[in-house]
């Protein structure tokens, strides 16, 4: 008996339009923008000058001590090194490259052989130099997480859950390029020395599950397939450690603390490409979907491509979109500008019509308690919201606001349409400001 998952919500998955669309490609436009904070925790420093010629896969930003470098995904000329808007809503130092459409590769791209003879340290170095970061959400440098986890973990979970609605990039990866994932898993095993490897997918991905079970492809490669119920947010490290490895992660700890390493399948595939093919991380799979998109697609997009080019690749908008999101609808960021580039963590570009969400209403809590039932962390979002409005930081501390992961389940389920994620995020910000003595509204 697997442990039941308390809390969480069952979302309308909205994947029907894109789940059967094969991974296509998007032509790189003339101007590509590479923000230096592709790995947000430790931004890179530009190492090219304006006017300099760059090749495809060439390093254009040097990662810091713990960070990873940034590579150009096209060949061409550096047009500018200046702050540019990013999908997060803030401008950040970026390298703008004028694409010469020749795709001249950098000379150091060479396939590697006899990987099994390489040491873990060598592999970690390759992964770092290729600019691989965790592709789901955070964008933490993968090599640093791997290095910290070495010797502490014995269980590897490949995360193919992709629980947010609309997103199908990882699903297409599973269907079309399972070899890359398996190769990535082998490299990860070599680095981490884990005993057991599992692939977690949602039970609703019937075709992928059938494919793997019929061919025995995963079992042959020592990977156990674990189908999980379609509940959001089951795809977090904490939940997967509990559901797949049946280990409880300490309240403020990480999965690594209980010997579990969780990595999404897209990052595993990126590691395989970096190590085996020697290519830097310069492109990823992005789902372009939503009711306001003419042609729903999954496409391999070069990092740095402006969103506008993605919209063109989807044959443009059908009417005026209501919202354009980077990422899934539960945690994605609404955009006001289509010039921002695709980043390493951009899983989707969604153009939603007004009909895809409920019309906005004035918020009104009716104390129904649904937010409490769905919170995966067992918090009381309703009470947190009350104390946040009062700025009662002592009570917020007592009710453990810091544990909130902003998954959005509470705000999704709220019948009174209370913007709980917004309120709690603001409360965290104000609390931080009050602790550091700063003004909560500074810089806003």
């Amino acid at each position: 008996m697997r442990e039941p998952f308390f809390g969480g919500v069952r979302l309308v998955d909205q994947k029907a339009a894109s789940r059967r669309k094969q991974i296509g490609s998007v032509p790189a436009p003339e101007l590509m923008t590479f923000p230096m904070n592709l790995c947000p925790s430790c931004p890179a420093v530009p190492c090219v000058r304006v006017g300099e010629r760059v090749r495809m896969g060439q390093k254009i930003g040097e990662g810091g001590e713990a960070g990873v470098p940034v590579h150009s995904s096209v060949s061409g000329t550096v047009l500018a090194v200046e702050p540019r808007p990013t999908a997060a809503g803030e401008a950040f130092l970026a390298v703008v490259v004028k694409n010469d459409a020749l795709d001249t590769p950098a000379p150091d791209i060479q396939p590697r052989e006899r990987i099994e003879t390489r040491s873990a340290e060598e592999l970690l170095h390759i992964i770092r130099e290729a600019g691989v970061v965790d592709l789901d959400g955070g964008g933490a440098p993968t090599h640093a997480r791997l290095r910290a986890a070495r010797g502490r973990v014995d269980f590897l979970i490949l995360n193919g859950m992709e629980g947010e609605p609309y997103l199908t990039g990882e699903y297409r990866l599973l269907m079309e390029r399972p070899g890359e994932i398996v190769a990535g898993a082998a490299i990860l095993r070599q680095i981490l020395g884990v005993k057991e490897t599992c692939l977690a997918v949602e039970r609703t991905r019937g075709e992928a599950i059938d494919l793997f079970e019929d061919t025995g492809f995963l079992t042959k490669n020592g990977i156990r397939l674990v189908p999980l119920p379609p509940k959001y947010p089951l795809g977090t490290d904490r939940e997967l450690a509990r559901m797949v490895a049946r280990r409880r992660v300490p309240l403020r700890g990480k999965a690594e603390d209980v010997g579990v390493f969780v990595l999404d399948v897209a990052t595993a595939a990126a590691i395989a490409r970096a190590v085996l093919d020697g290519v830097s991380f310069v492109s990823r799979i992005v789902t372009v979907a939503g009711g306001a998109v003419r042609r729903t697609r999954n496409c391999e997009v070069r990092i740095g491509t402006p969103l506008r080019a993605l919209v063109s690749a989807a044959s443009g908008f059908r009417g005026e979109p209501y919202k354009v999101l980077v990422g899934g609808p539960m945690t994605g960021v609404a955009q006001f500008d289509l010039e921002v580039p695709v980043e390493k963590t951009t899983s989707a570009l969604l153009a939603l019509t007004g009909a895809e969400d409920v019309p906005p209403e004035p918020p009104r809590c009716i104390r129904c308690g649904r937010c409490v039932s769905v919170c995966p962390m067992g918090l009381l979002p309703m009470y947190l919201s009350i104390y946040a409005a009062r700025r009662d930081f002592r009570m917020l501390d007592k009710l453990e606001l810091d544990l909130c992961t902003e998954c959005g389940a509470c705000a999704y389920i709220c019948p009174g349409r209370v913007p709980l994620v917004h309120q709690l995020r603001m409360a965290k910000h104000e609390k931080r400001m009050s602790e550091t003595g700063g003004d909560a509204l500074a810089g806003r």
Partner: protein
Amino acid sequence: MTRLPGGKKERRLGLMVSLPPHVHVREGTSAIMLDVVVALLPALAVAVYFFGLRVMTLSLVSVCACVVLELGYQTLLKKPITAWDGSAMVTGLLLAMCLPVTIPYGLLLLGDAFAIIVVKQLYGGIGRNVFNPALCARAFLASFPVQLSTFTSPTAYIPVWGHVDADAVASATPLASLQAGKLPAEPLRYLFVGMTGGSMGETCALLLLLGGAFLVLRHVISPRIPLSYLGTVALLTVLFPMGNDPVTWMLCQLFSGGLMLGAVFMATDYTTSPVTHGGQIAYGIGCGVITVLIRYFGAYPEGVCYAILIMNAFAWLLDRALRPRRLGGRLRGLLGRKTEVRP
């Protein structure tokens, strides 16, 4: 819109920017309230069958009065209008259902006004009131003891309009005999289908339970409060029966008076009940204990109304004391004490 190199300018898209999540569940507050009304309708239909058309007119008047009062109050005080969200409708219907069919229209309107204005709006409206408006109004109307305790037998003729001659139609209720320590005169199955004296909407235990099952299936309420409430009453009455048939005594206690209506529809009122799972169970148990205490030792035959009102006051405290279990493997016990649980 950023300036592109070369000074190209394009038409600005009118994009909506907001914080996530960008999708929400379809059902809002009014859909939930509508579900509650639907769940109440079968029991109301049975009441019309047994007590006559006056049940219908009283309910309609009460519902309309509550909506109009809420609308009027919010318009006059220039507050956001929530009168159409259905909660006033539910309050009006519930208040009518927990009053006897002989109630004069004037008193009903007084009760509606008390429920909506004093109990609900003065505390800040939906989601903010401490006590259940319908039950509070019923408790308030108990200041008219004669009108509030005239119960009719299901076969008596009640005129739709005008004054009801109380003495002509009065009949004993099962609760009165239970209070006297005797089993009711009518067979148990009559109590179950509602063919007995009592407030107009409370007699048909069968359809009230079905309504509750509907609400549970629609995820409007969780079964925690009704089950813990009814379970506590069942346990206490079967352990301490009067007479020598504990099971019949227990079933009569369960199916008489306002217990079903209270446990399924009143105690589960969102605003006035706890939201944590542990809190809900403790709240149900508390309601059950107080109900039995009042029924056994009180001067008044029915304890459901006061039991729920008393427990309403504990809703926030219970939430605070019985917070949910954390994923991290720690159990948060009573009063925030932390207990380690082995993985």
